[in-house]
């Protein structure tokens, strides 16, 4: 109720603001300044994306990017600002992380923004979900892990990066698809979660490939499964969950969005520039060096991607919220 009236207000304000600016600044030009709102601390994953993409994007778009960090409430403070308090003049955009962008307001009624109040511009990377165990773990395959969980329900401990994160939800998705019950142990981020698996404190960690890759390569961690559509060239021997008859595709994605009501010119210009960045071999090489898996979806594709996730996570949360709390 409140959010609707706010939304209306935001629309009216956006429309009113668009008018005077309309003729003057409908597109990016050399030297224009774009603020990138980041909902996380400098040095984190969002910042890593910004540092990778923005130097290239700045050349293509001609605009200068200024990062503004406003961490708090797993990004919700920055995204509320993007949705509710930002002029749709193209001069302020934000890095949007999924699934947190949606799970924030799905899980907490106090958070009132939604993806209907933003303009998705482009998703850039997706770090696919993986199940990792330590080298000494008795579980050699994903079947063995799940079999142990079937034999002794609610004894297998599975780490995740925190309630509301991608790993937390993918654990629930796997539970739903298999009928198994795990003990879900939330950690403060992906690092502590895989470290706990490495130490043997927990049986396995639902994590992300890019983050655990060095440990996998060194043989400290073993990947049992990856949550992608097809097998990945980095880990060709690791099966996908789909191969095992479990229809779970999940990961942690990051891209760019603007406020609702951004002009079509701005949006097209931004996407065109991003298209050129993604096609640039230098950029791809830099991305590979930083272990980023490019998952480019622009404009409406990105919106569909977000919408689909919103539906999935809403349904999951409706089902599990009473047990979780």
């Amino acid at each position: 109720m409140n959010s609707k009236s706010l939304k209306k207000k935001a629309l009216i304000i956006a429309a009113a603001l668009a008018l005077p600016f309309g003729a003057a600044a409908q597109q990016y030009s050399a030297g224009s300044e774009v603020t990138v709102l980041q909902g996380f601390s400098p040095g984190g994953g969002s910042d890593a994306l910004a540092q990778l993409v923005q130097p290239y994007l700045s050349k293509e778009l001609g605009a200068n990017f200024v990062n503004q960090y406003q961490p708090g409430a797993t990004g919700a403070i920055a995204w509320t600002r993007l949705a509710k308090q930002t002029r749709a003049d193209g001069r302020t955009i934000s890095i949007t992380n999924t699934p947190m962008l949606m799970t924030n307001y799905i899980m907490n009624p106090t958070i009132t923004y939604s993806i209907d109040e933003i303009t998705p511009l482009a998703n850039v990377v997706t770090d696919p979900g993986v199940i990792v165990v330590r080298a000494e773990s008795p579980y050699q395959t994903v079947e063995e892990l799940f079999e142990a969980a079937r034999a002794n329900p609610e004894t297998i401990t599975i780490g995740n990066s925190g309630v509301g994160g991608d790993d937390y939800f993918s654990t629930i998705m796997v539970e739903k698809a298999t009928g198994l019950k795990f003990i879900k142990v939330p950690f403060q981020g992906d690092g502590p979660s895989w470290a706990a698996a490495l130490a043997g404190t927990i049986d396995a960690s639902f994590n992300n490939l890019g983050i655990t890759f060095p440990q996998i390569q060194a043989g400290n961690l073993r990947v049992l499964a990856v949550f992608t559509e097809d097998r990945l060239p980095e880990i060709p021997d690791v099966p996908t969950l789909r191969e095992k008859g479990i229809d779970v595709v999940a990961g942690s994605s990051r891209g760019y969005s603007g406020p609702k009501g951004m002009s079509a010119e701005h949006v097209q210009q931004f996407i065109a520039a991003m298209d050129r960045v993604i096609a640039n071999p230098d950029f791809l090489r830099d991305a590979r060096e930083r272990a980023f898996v490019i998952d480019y979806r622009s404009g409406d594709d990105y919106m569909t991607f977000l919408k689909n996730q919103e539906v999935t996570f809403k349904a999951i949360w409706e089902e599990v919220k009473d047990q979780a709390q």
Partner: protein
Amino acid sequence: METSFIAIGFANALTPTNLMFMTLGTALGLMVGALPGLSATMALALLLPLTFSLPPETGLCMLASLYLAAMYGGSIAAILLRTPGTPAAAATLLDGFPMASRGEAGRALGISLTSSLVGGIISGIALLTIAPFLGKLVLLFGPVELFAIAVLGITMIGTLAKGSPMKGLLAGALGLLLAMVGMDPTTGTARFTAGNINLFSGVPFTVALIGLFSIPQAIALAEQARGKQPRPAQISDRVIPRLPEFLRLLPNSMRSAVIGVVTGLIPGTGGDTASWFAYNEAKRFAKDKSRFGKGDPAGVAAPEAANNAVVGGALVPTIALGIPGSSATAVLLGGLMVHGILPGPTLLTDYGDVTYTLIWAILLANIPLFLLGLLFTRFSVIVMRVPRMAVAVAIVVMSIVGSFAINNNLFDVWLMLGFGLLGYIFERAGIPTAPMVIGLVLGMLLDVSLNQSLLIGRGNWGIFLESKISLVLLAIAALSILQATPFFRLVFGRFGRRKAVPQAGTMAGDS
């Protein structure tokens, strides 16, 4: 293999370019540390993009020296203005500020600088010699052990209560309660947030610290503004400590440095925790405990040696395993990734040259830190000559800017002022602030690790007794509590009584 990396790293770190950038990093770190609200982590992250164009070794040299210098820099404002420049310097002000207010600002800063150096050098040596072996130790500290550490830390409230156990416990409990604000880590439910999303991530710790200490100080300065200014003659005291004093404090600094290295080693605990642990131990080992909180040099040396030693400690798991030991080292890891060096076990093998340059930089950065620190300190002591009213206004301005800068959020400024008011009330009511800080520092860790442990132990509280580390830590905690009870004095007779007497005389509190 490894010895050659050590040599290569040493040669790398000593090139003129790298030395220059180390000096630059030190200068930046001193400033960032001295300004409240700007933390080492933030400065590292903001500086990171600038190092992209530099060779990885040079960038890391600069970042490492910045990190180290910021740890010392934090004590400058703590000692001179009773405003912690960084959270890790909060313990320093307990004795640093009383020293400064009796005209020994230079001496306090000198002790802070030299003990920072001791801490930095010991942690550098630890990093260079035992990092590969210590790395595996980190994995021994899971949620169960972290919970035991938090419990042990909470018992420090007793030490910091300063004469009135009731008031100390009140402040500590309030701190713990405030640490519960925010999203529940195991269910995602918002607790005590009053529907305000600015509180979903909890009470921002640095914001609370700035408010609690600096605002009451600003008010006190304003109140005294009509009184006479302290005599300038007292200010120009010697900065470098005399050798006997340095030697007298050396065992304390070294013990604190070891505490710092170990605390840094454990992921989830950092400089803010280490400095309190070190302070607590310094007081435990001291013959005359009554001088703590009134300007005992040992109370400055301990936290400062510890928080600089954390730098090396936190890098151990980072280097040996690719697990960042603190948020600041997480940023350093980001610096490596930019150059295509993925954090992980290969850091000591494939990328040994870069990694050992970083290690040497931590050790060598102590040289520019000493020289620049001395210069900076002499300069900053001038603050003592500035009229009190001007200093009071400057503190308020710095606190507002600093608390805003942390999250770019105006809400935090109001929160800081709220904590300022609370700190003032505490001061007036004679309630010590330090126990509250302990509650705020450790409350979150206590909550998270307890929940995780119980999940892992399938709801069985016995899990805390199954781990040897946790058993020992909890036993020490239980002993510390017993030590303060009449029962303990009854059993240990004279020994206990002698300890209890000086405690009774510490009602006055710090100014």
